[in-house]
């Protein structure tokens, strides 16, 4: 049977069954109260959003460093990478990431993503990207594929460093859902490091994705 026919048949079955349901049971209809507008999880003062966000980052097991301007950011990035023992570092195509990595210097082998084979990517210690948004309520980073090539760098290496402007922190999940655009074929929400509790419910951090997520929070210089 052709695919279009199967589709028609399933949709037909859905309509037929729905029609039956309407005839048989307006009275045993289960109560479903009318939709009401969503209540925000919390409403911190605008000035407290950064504080709220960093608290949540800590709660979900991510690290953060607050910096002012790119010079401070580059110094912080160098410290983070050295402390983590990262030797092979890859940056995304975001201009700010490229500038920061250039400033970090030659101590670390810094690769460009587009020159990497899959095996080389798998051998990297750290990926540096930006995040398009942060979510204060949940300590979440939002990555949009239309803005930057961060999909693999934020996932494959054991260390992920994400540069985020403090101006891009949203209050809540619903706020963030309103800002992202499906012009990005992949939108990724990242809340802390990769984790599993599949063996005896014992938490292990860093299973398939990064073990370390470090957010470099940049205030305007």
């Amino acid at each position, binding site marked *: 049977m052709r695919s279009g026919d199967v589709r028609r048949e399933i949709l037909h079955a859905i309509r037929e069954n729905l029609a039956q349901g309407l005839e048989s049971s307006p009275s045993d209809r289960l109560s479903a109260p009318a939709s009401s507008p969503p209540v925000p999880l919390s409403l911190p003062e605008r000035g407290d959003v950064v504080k709220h966000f960093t608290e949540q980052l800590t709660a979900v097991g991510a690290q953060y460093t607050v910096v002012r301007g790119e010079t401070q950011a580059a110094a912080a990035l160098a410290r983070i990478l050295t402390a983590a023992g990262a030797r092979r570092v890859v940056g995304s195509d975001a201009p700010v990431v490229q500038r920061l990595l250039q400033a970090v210097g030659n101590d670390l082998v810094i690769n460009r993503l587009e020159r990497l084979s899959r095996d080389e990517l798998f051998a990297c210690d750290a990926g540096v990207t930006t995040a398009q948004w942060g979510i204060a309520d949940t300590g979440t980073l939002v990555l949009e594929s239309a803005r930057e090539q961060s999909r693999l760098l934020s*996932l494959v290496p054991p260390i992920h460093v994400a540069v985020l402007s403090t101006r891009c922190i949203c209050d809540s999940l619903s706020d963030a859902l309103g800002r992202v655009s499906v012009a990005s074929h992949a939108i990724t929400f990242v809340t802390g490091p990769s984790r599993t509790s599949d063996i005896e419910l014992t938490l292990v951090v860093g299973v398939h994705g990064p073990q370390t997520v470090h957010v470099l929070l940049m205030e305007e210089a």
Partner: protein
Amino acid sequence: MTFERDARTALADGQLRGALRHATTLFGERRRAALATVPDWEGARDRARAIKDETLAHLDRYLEEFTANAERAGARVHWARDATEACDIIGEIAEQRGARTVVKSKSMASEEIHLNAALARRGIEPVETDLGEYIVQLAGETPSHIVVPAIHKTKAQIGALFADKLGIAPSDDVATLTAAARAALRRRFAEADLGISGVNFAVAETGTILILENEGNARLTTSLPRTHVALMGIEKVIPRFADLDVFLQLLPRSGTGQVLTAYQSLLTGTKRTPEDEGPEELHIVVLDNGRSRMLASAVTRQSLACIRCGACLNACPVYRQIGGHAYGSVYPGPIGAVLSPQLFGLARSAALPYASSLCGACRDVCPVKIDIPALLLHLRAQVVAHRVGEPRVLERLAFWIYAAVMVRPRLFEWVMHAVRRLRIMPPLGAWTKWRDLRPLAPQSFREQWRAGLRDEGDVDA
């Protein structure tokens, strides 16, 4: 009866019961703590249910809208009436691309259609990449919990399994075992030609599919291979992108007690330029497999509101004792007891609607307020009406007599009198095996009434 036999086996397994008690209690506590962070949890449940009801009432329209938008974004949507069709579609996609190894992230629907066996028959090796699913696959077993598939295995058992299958030194250190699985699976991710995932929500408005997870294996599965196949039941669709908000508040909190899982991937079609990252092809397989039938009544329709969080498993006093395997179905616990008979036929799962004390704990924790006890009663009535399962001649006779006596007051009085005089009790068999029947009073209320109770007190005043 398999259910009864398997339940007995589970009850005799002290280690299993200890693990189940630990897991279900912990998840219950975490869930309660997590939902305390939502100011209006009841309101969120009501909104989510209203969205599901609205979607299901117009499911045809929303599915068409989803399909049009997903295809506009570059995905290809396939339709499967049953398990065989879905397996054939996915098997053919894999074969046409010469896939030898397929990486899979967790998908209940793929287990429902027994996709792994179907792929293996075509000479394609499916590799489960969720740690729990990977353990279960290596052991040649089936998952015992929706959220924690290998909850029935100890770290020592997993250590022995990994030593045998992966050739690592025996260990019962959880971090070491997890690292071994990561290393072994990295190789499989690197060589995989195709990635297969499930779908948690499919947004009609944008054609987006959303996948939640904690480990990162679903991100790898949907990012690295050239082709991504996503399998979804027809009920996964929701109308609007903004509706994701309430479901993302409910699902992680109900499932694992997290405010959010580590990752949500929102995928809309395929990459837009050759330089973009991600698969070149996205195939979305929409599966009916008995679901459209559930739309035919308001009672059964609510089964399709389920978002597969697993909260009802953790809350269920039956599941907490016997675990998932005894249910003999991909879907265990209270929701499994209502889904399995509807999906796989009453004949195969006639015992499951009875695997409940109807205490209602499942209904209380359900984030979309599915009235599971009502569904269980509905299915029990069907089991009786269709006379599925063992013929119970004595039970039917007993209820026939009971009904005949209860509608005739004089007969009732006479029978009760005789029962008291002769001190006979009906043979209630299994029922009285676990319960004490209370002794009958020497005088019935009606007899006491006639003998003067009527004149005591000032009833008529």
